[in-house]
């Protein structure tokens, strides 16, 4: 049986992270949604179906796995699985039935001819011909579901990985507070003096080549990805960080994708941060309202009640914040936005590629300068921005132009009104 992982047409429920990645590449715990599906099925995907503009970047990452091309699956039995299926503990269906979560295809096992399917619309059209059943399994509805589920997934991923013990270097004054079998320190990782790793409430993974600097406290469940530096940080429970991140200050129940920095003091809680983000010193987000009511998140222009009282910020790839930036509960910061602090919490939505300056959204220095800054930031970590990366960012810039222009116009009116 062949596995195809696909994303449906509600990728916008997972913004801003899904501007530059398919839903299946969102991380929850230590693994991505696609990796969890592969684990449940028992084999890696044989193909992926993603939005057209993501295909070149995804294909480069997944080579040689075909993307948006199922021609090699002729004559095979194929299991299609929506990346939004929460696959931990899920049993893939054995019957050749199309399973639906409302109007969204969740999974479909078929021996039919799938060669011509190139996108979700084509997949749905084909699946509608099949016997239908309701998908009753766990499902990620919105981006905050991924964030809120991450702590328990860290523990499940630790168990699934089956690795334990200290295989790196750990200074004699570093302490494991709790069961030692809940700690895995990979080869090449280094735990400095006066570090406390608290495994009483969950397991901790410190991956290859990490450095944990003195006076860092890590509470499990926690996953620290390859090459990450923890710099005297207070890593509270439920964090998934890395690879190649620099983290200081306080972090709680947050997901931080690779190559992002929160080097200095400041609190980040119940947040989801993309790649290549730099959070300036004392950038802080709120994750709890003063009246303890549930947090709403502005999604597609309207507030959506998360149903949770603990929701922080969702920060897109390549975002930069200035020192002292304050983010409200349930904030969305679009891809490659630049935020300059005002001393007050910022608006809950900043569009992609915009500059928030002097209290209003502006064009800032424009796309050329933003891309140049991104290339510089990437080169500092010895990573080159590929032509596919740049094309992707330019495409998202174009996709979000109209919305950004509306916010910029509103910003101009606000500036004029204050004269």
């Amino acid at each position, binding site marked *: 049986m062949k596995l195809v992982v696909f994303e449906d047409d509600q990728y916008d429920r997972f913004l801003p992270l899904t501007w530059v990645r398919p839903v299946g590449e969102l991380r929850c715990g230590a693994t991505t949604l696609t990796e969890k599906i592969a684990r449940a099925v028992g084999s890696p995907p044989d193909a992926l179906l993603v939005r057209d503009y993501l295909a070149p970047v995804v294909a480069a990452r997944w080579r040689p796995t075909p993307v948006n091309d199922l021609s090699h699956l002729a004559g095979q039995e194929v299991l299609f699985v929506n990346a939004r299926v929460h696959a931990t503990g899920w049993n893939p269906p054995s019957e050749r039935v199309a399973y639906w979560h409302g109007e969204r295809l969740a999974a479909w096992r078929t021996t039919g001819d799938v060669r011509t399917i190139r996108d979700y619309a084509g997949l749905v059209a084909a699946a509608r011909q099949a016997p239908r059943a309701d998908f009753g399994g766990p499902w990620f509805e919105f981006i905050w579901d991924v964030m809120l589920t991450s702590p328990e997934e860290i523990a499940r991923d630790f168990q699934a990985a089956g690795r334990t013990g200290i295989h790196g270097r750990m200074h004699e004054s570093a302490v494991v507070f709790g069961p030692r079998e809940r700690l895995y320190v990979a080869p090449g990782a280094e735990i400095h003096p006066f570090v406390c790793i608290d495994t009483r409430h969950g397991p901790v993974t410190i991956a290859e080549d990490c450095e944990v600097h003195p006076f860092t406290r890590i509470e499990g469940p926690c996953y620290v990805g390859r090459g990450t530096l923890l710099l005297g940080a207070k890593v509270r429970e439920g964090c998934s960080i890395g690879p190649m991140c620099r983290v200081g200050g306080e972090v709680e129940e947050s997901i931080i994708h690779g190559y992002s920095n929160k080097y200095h003091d400041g609190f980040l809680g119940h947040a989801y941060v993309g790649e290549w983000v730099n959070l300036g010193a004392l950038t802080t987000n709120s994750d709890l309202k003063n009246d303890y009511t549930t947090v709403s998140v502005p999604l597609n222009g309207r507030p959506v009640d998360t149903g949770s009282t603990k929701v922080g910020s969702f920060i897109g790839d390549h975002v930069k914040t200035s020192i002292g930036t304050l983010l409200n509960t349930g904030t969305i910061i679009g891809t490659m936005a630049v935020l*300059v602090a005002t001393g007050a919490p910022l608006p809950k939505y900043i569009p992609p590629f915009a*500059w928030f*300056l*002097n209290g209003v959204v*502006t*064009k*800032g*220095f*424009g*796309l*050329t*300068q933003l891309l140049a800054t991104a290339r510089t930031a990437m080169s500092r970590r010895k990573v080159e921005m590929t032509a596919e990366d740049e094309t992707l960012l330019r495409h998202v810039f174009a996709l979000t132009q109209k919305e950004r222009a509306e916010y*910029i116009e509103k*910003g*101009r009116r606000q*500036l*004029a009104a204050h*004269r």
Partner: protein
Amino acid sequence: MANENILQRVIQVTARVLGLDPSTIKPTDNFVFDLGAESTQSVELVAAFEQEFGIEMDQDAALAVQTVGGAADFIAKYLS
């Protein structure tokens, strides 16, 4: 719109954004080296010019303009 009129409005906007006395601003003044504009103020200036003149400028080209007089000429081209 006469270029002298555009220049005077550019001077007024520059004075407002940078907190300067407009009578001290000359067309040959460089925004950064003579008038002390910080990088973020360059962004503010472009936004303020766009608001003042009701135009949408190419960001890269606008940010390459270095002097007050150069800004007036640049804006005049948009208006013509």
